[in-house]
């Protein structure tokens, strides 16, 4: 039996009064490598953040490793590479320090780093090819190198589930190859990977499944695709007189639906 690592049922997210995710059904099993594709603003990051509990769900539920997310305790099993933020913090921080924060889930408060923690940090920095820069300040690195630091930080926790939001954006091809190799090794060890990306590049052969987001819904979930434009055009278009569906909760409605309602009711407001 394959263990369910991520399971999100009937997921709906509202941000700033606007429905961002609707009717999300997604299950990721142990050992899978799932690529999430989609246009800018289609809700990929929001999906990832909802899974990790960073964005609250308005509807539905998330399970991680079989446990409801709000009672989940195994955060040390998850490694996360957030979509890159340009802002560096106000105080200098070295590569080592940033990567070392990837070990905190393994340590109690006030507990100093053990030898195995240091080894894991060193190994992670090695893996992204930054060992000669370990003592340097992060702000002196290029954008792509900073991205590699974030990857190393996620690797340092030796996670069972890696969630990566556009990890290779701005990373050069050679480093992408290295990164693909790292992931390959992790996959061989049974690591589950959920990966948001615009271009598969060297990661392509690793992907076991593709999910395509479109306007906050899952538009495709199946065998790997090259690009989100390759989604088979399977859905039927509604005939013009067909009434628009309102197939989600009433407080999660798009302006389009609202307009449709008005149109049905009194014919006004278009």
């Amino acid at each position: 039996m394959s263990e369910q690592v991520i399971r999100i049922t009937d997921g709906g997210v509202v941000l700033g009064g606007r429905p961002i995710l609707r009717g999300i059904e997604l299950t990721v099993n142990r050992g899978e490598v799932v690529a999430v594709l989609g246009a800018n603003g289609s809700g990929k990051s929001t999906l990832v953040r909802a899974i990790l509990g960073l964005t609250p769900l308005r509807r539905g539920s998330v399970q991680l490793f079989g446990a409801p997310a709000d009672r989940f305790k195994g955060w040390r099993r998850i490694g996360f590479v957030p979509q890159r933020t340009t802002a560096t913090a106000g105080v200098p921080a070295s590569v080592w320090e940033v990567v070392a924060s990837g070990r905190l889930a393994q340590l109690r408060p006030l507990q100093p780093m053990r030898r195995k923690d240091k080894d894991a940090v060193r190994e992670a920095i090695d893996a992204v090819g930054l060992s000669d820069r370990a003592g340097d300040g992060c702000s002196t690195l290029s954008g792509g190198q900073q991205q590699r630091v974030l990857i190393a930080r996620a690797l340092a926790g030796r996670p069972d589930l890696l969630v990566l939001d556009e990890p290779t954006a701005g990373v050069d091809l050679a480093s992408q190859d290295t990164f693909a190799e790292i992931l390959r090794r992790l996959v061989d060890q049974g690591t589950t990977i959920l990966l948001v990306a615009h271009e598969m590049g060297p990661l392509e052969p690793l992907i076991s499944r593709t999910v395509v987001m479109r306007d906050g819904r899952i538009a495709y979930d199946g065998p790997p695709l090259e690009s989100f434009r390759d989604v088979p055009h399977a859905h039927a278009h509604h005939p013009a007189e067909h009434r628009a569906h309102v197939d989600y909760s009433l407080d999660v409605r798009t302006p389009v639906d609202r307009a449709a309602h008005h149109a049905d009711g009194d014919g006004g407001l278009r």
Partner: protein
Amino acid sequence: MSLLTYDFVQRALLAAFVTGLAAPAIGTYLVQRRQALMGDGLGHVALTGVAVGLWFSTSPVATAVVVAILASVLMELVRERGSTSGDVALALLFYGGIAGGVFITGLAGQSAATLNRFLFGSITTVDERDIWVTVALAVVVVLAAVGLAPRLFAIAHDPDFARVAGLRVRGYNLLVSVLAAVTVTVAMRTVGLLLVSALMVVPVATAQQLTRTFKQTLLVAMALGTAAAVSGVLVSANVDVAPGATIVLLALGGFALAWPVGMVLRRRRRVAEPFSDDALDLDLGLELGHDHTVVPEEHGHDHGPDCGHQAVPHGDHVDYVHDGHRHAPHGGHYDEH
């Protein structure tokens, strides 16, 4: 230095020592969170607390601690909500705090002159009990700031990542805010409420000029803060000047000295950097003449971010526009691209 034998000078030195240690310790996290002015905001609010204490004829320090802690929690909750309104919320606290302070002091039948002791510090009037409270609070602040450094650092650096790592982000953020409030009220006696923010921020800014890692910054800032605070008291014990102002001016003097040093350090690092082995290693796989040629001209300088030639990112390296063509570093020479 016969002055040092006086009790009040010894107490002043001890108070200066611990505040000099504690203020930059917590200030480092405020700077990292880009809240350098939070100390100042809390200082203004603490003034209202002082006035409340005067009104009820209880210890102004105790009421200041309570009011500042309440304000810090409020500020943290506002910050958590979103970033845009945080700035305005801070301004509201500033003005509300100082106006409330002056207003309530009037109600208490005290003159504004009474407030001066708290606005500008009165380190020489610190008594035995004040000292022990100050020392105890400062020890707590320093222990938390140093002991929890890896966690507090990670949370301030990337709260999302910290949350996914299972850290109690909100709890730790509240802790930092509350410790900042405590520090402000502790420093009230030494540098005063108006200048406390300086002791929290200036040593950190100075340390940043010289350091590359967070830990170094934290420790150097604490050392600098202590040095400024203690020497400020020593100076004012010998010359008739206000201790609080002297401490802050000394701290600023340190910054003025460190800044040019930092410029030189950064410049040196940058010059050493552009052709890091990183780019070259990748290039070495390609034999020369593969799809590029060596540039025969002499170079008076190494191309780098500072050389004045336009830099053009090109695949895995950077080309520099030179006399209308692009130069790419390769081993000891430049290729034409």
